[in-house]
């Protein structure tokens, strides 16, 4: 203890105390003794219990404080840090990189290490159908990266691999899927209500309005239609009961993360279906001439869904209702009200980042403003910033280990105001 406590005070790292030997006497403290000996003592409530020394000398107990440098695997993991950033870490075993280089052949020497990010929001990713991809050149020695993204509420998958100058990319390993959190309120506002009781019970339901419209011809006969719809609304508002699985299937399309979990659950739960009132749904809808399953479970094409995602429309049910009848939810934002640019699919964004690097003595201390910069073991450092509009001052102060030498470097970076010309 003595050493470890003092280390804490001196701020030393625990790496230095590795293989700390704890003497056998420490090890022989009270609790290791056979339980019986305490029972006798506990009545006396003594100040100190003198431990009976065991006959055979005990092996010293040694804790190792060196973490494994690698696990000899090839893996890549993504973790969503916040709506805009994903953290990636990876390990590539020497064997797998050798195998890949052999596969590439003589050109391998000219290849660079790259982290390829795939935007797979609401896509069943098969390697080729991502919405977009971008590469980050990571170099052969990096094994972590913070990746700045363009949008919140997006799913990403990544591959680490080698890229040749002609653009061919040879992946070594593919990551898990990471979905960034939503950063703003949802624009969808349909209401589905559920009653949960301790006993497995009542099915969830939609408070929906069924009205007759031809959504395909909405623009042509808009006024007449809407009037008609208004009337129908009052006439046909009804409660539609859903099964639990309906709700799951419905939500599963919103998040690929949920999709996997739910798919797993649907597979295991087929025998439970009867319990949750699926009969009720079909019976109820017989006179409605549409099957709720068509509305809620039928797959929808990627295009439609992506547009809805971008536009935040909550009119999914309307669109899916087909030509003859549809169900819409109260208070939904209709697509006509959205600005032009959101309705169309085309998008264009740019972003800027800033990388600052430098080097000094490995044991020196470098400060950026009031923050300490972490140096690598060779004394180099790299800082990566988001670069928003405006000025970023960069005032570095390096102090040598013995506190005698001090160098200051001050600079600043400015990004002029970004102009958006619609």
């Amino acid at each position: 203890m003595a050493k470890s406590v003092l280390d804490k005070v001196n701020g030393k790292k625990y790496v230095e105390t590795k293989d700390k030997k704890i003497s056998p006497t420490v090890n022989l403290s009270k609790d290791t003794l056979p339980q019986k000996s305490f029972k006798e003592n506990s009545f006396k409530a003594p100040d100190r219990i003198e431990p009976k020394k065991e006959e055979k000398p005990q092996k010293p107990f040694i804790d190792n404080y060196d973490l494994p440098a690698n696990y000899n695997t090839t893996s890549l993991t993504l973790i969503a840090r916040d709506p805009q950033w994903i953290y990636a870490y990876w390990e590539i075993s020497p064997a797998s990189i050798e195998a890949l280089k052999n596969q590439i052949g003589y050109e391998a020497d000219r290849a660079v290490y790259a982290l390829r990010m795939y935007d797979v929001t609401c896509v069943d990713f098969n390697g080729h159908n991502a919405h977009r991809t971008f590469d980050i050149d990571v170099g052969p020695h990096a094994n972590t990266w913070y990746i700045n993204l363009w949008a919140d509420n997006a799913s990403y998958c990544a591959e680490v691999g080698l890229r040749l100058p002609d653009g061919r990319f040879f992946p070594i390993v593919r990551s898990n899927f990471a979905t960034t959190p939503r950063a703003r309120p949802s624009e969808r506002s349909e209401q589905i209500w559920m009653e949960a009781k301790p006993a497995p019970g009542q099915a969830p339901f939609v408070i929906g309005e069924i009205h007759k419209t031809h959504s395909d011809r909405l623009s042509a006969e808009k006024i007449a239609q809407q009037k008609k719809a208004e009337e129908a609304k009052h006439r046909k508002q009804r409660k539609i009961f859903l099964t639990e699985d309906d709700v799951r299937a419905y939500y599963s399309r919103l998040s690929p993360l949920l999709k996997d979990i739910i798919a797993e659950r649907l597979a295991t739960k087929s025998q439970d279906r009867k319990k949750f009132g699926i009969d009720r749904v079909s019976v109820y809808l017989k006179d409605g001439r549409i099957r709720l399953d068509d509305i809620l479970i039928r797959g929808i094409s990627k295009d439609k869904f992506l547009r809805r995602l971008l536009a935040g429309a909550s009119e999914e049910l309307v669109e899916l209702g087909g030509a003859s009848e549809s169900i819409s939810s109260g208070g939904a934002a209709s697509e006509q009200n959205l600005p032009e640019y959101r309705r169309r699919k085309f998008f264009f964004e740019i972003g800027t980042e800033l990388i600052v690097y430098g080097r000094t003595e490995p044991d020196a201390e470098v400060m950026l403003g009031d923050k300490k910069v972490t140096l690598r073991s060779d004394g180099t450092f790299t800082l990566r910033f988001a670069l928003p509009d405006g000025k970023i001052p960069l005032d570095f102060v390096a102090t040598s280990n013995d506190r005698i030498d001090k160098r200051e470097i001050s600079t600043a970076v400015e990004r002029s105001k970004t102009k958006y010309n619609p």
Partner: protein
Amino acid sequence: MHKGYLCLLLHTHLPFVRHPEEEYFLEENWLYEAITETYIPLIQVFDKLISDGVDFRVTMSLTPPLVSMLRDPLLQSRYIRHIDKLIELSEKEMERTGYQPHFHGLALMYHRKFLEARETFVDKYKKDIVLAFKKFQDNGYLEIIGSCATHGFLPILGVNSQDAKAQINIGVDHYKKTFGRPPRGFWLPECGYYPGVDEILRDAGVRYFFVDSHGIINADPSPKYSVYAPIYCPSGVAAFGRDWESSKQVWSSREGYPGDADYREYYRDIGHELEFNYIKPYIHPEGIRINTGIKYWRITGKTEYKEAYIPDWAREKAAMHAGNFMFNREKQIEHLSYHMDRKPIIISPYDAELFGHWWFEGPMWIDFLMRKMAYDQKTVKLITPSEYFCEYPTNQVAVPSASSWGWKGYSEFWLEGGNDWVYRHLHAAGKKMTELAQKFSDEIKRPSKNKIKLRALNQAARELVLAQSSDWAFIMKTGTMVPYAHRRMKLHINRFMRIYNDLTNGAIDNDWLKEVERRDNIFYNMNCASYYLPNSQKKPTRVVSKTIEPRKEPSYASK
């Protein structure tokens, strides 16, 4: 007739710090300080409210590591040693301050507080204060909710879903063992939620959990009642959202109540101020100055200049602040109920250690608040979430957004330059644990005679969950006691890796394993490895309703 509800939620948690191999361990003081300054004062407040017939409701989480420490005989006896020392110090202080009228009264106050703490701990609750909270729950005043095995931060651990499942299921089963019934609610550590975690909670039988405000506000679809009513996840588990306004009033270091000039100053402790030779017997034996808990100054102002603490003024302020808090909730409820077609519920979650430990007058404030809510107004009613569902079982369905209540609202506090290196090891260890459980699944279900493999597997799982505690990453970020957090992280990963290697090589060092079992004895009576079995293979866990017998450990003498 009341127009809305207030749910006061206290989250109690401390990381598992227990070092039988050392006689005195600096970090164990976290527990002792929290017992004296927070848990016992809260118990005293609740006991008094009940004996005075005040109808109150508080929701509380007691995390498994904290419960394990509170029920650990070694730590219990060490706490008695600790409080005896404090009583001795306060006696000396009474003498020393004899001619200082400003301080003498305070010395008497601390002396009385320590004596009462000892009495509550030893005589009234027989060293097991978890029983006190259980009693309040059984009497219907308190609702205790469960939490993860070791406060693992699920949005990051959830990368391996088996890790998140084990954290949750161990937590739930530990709750059943402790309180003799399954938990209805669940505290997601640091309010860390990601879509999908509710499915695990549902399978564990949990009905509701809590997220930060933006988890509800950014839910999809947009919830009709914002944070003032729960929403159901598609899994049927409900999510309650934190109310930002009431949180800020108490939490904020600037505008919050605890920063008032009349309240006691936390940072001026006699352990750091008095002459070294005088204080030496009461600080760490190595001569490291620590907080003793005896503090004589009030906050006074923002400068270093401090004046003596005056308990009557502070008490008056606590009453005033309780009244102000209540008044603001009344206005809030009146405003909300005008816009809503049902009674709004305000969720106010706080770290329990804020009350008493940081904010000395906190327990007193709770006492005043409970009394005022019961007698001085009719607009707001105190409620627990379970009671709320009796009135409103129908709620909107939406998916909360992934979030936490940490800095910036997401995972950044636990994932940044200073602590991101841990996840590489945690995820690798988690995968290896699942691999072990699959490989030795027969051993887990039908252990062989000498059980050594089963013991090794269970210990491996314990080391893994101990490493997964979000506290280590948290400490690495905050910057105090960082070497200890580094040490614990490395130690548990290494112990895990050693067991993993021993098991795969088929050679287990029994003496070594015994020693590790003795040191990291959290969940010593649970079959931890079974939680890493694939779902269909999991051994059905029996609910043990009778309270468990703590293991016998030597007790320190009390004078």
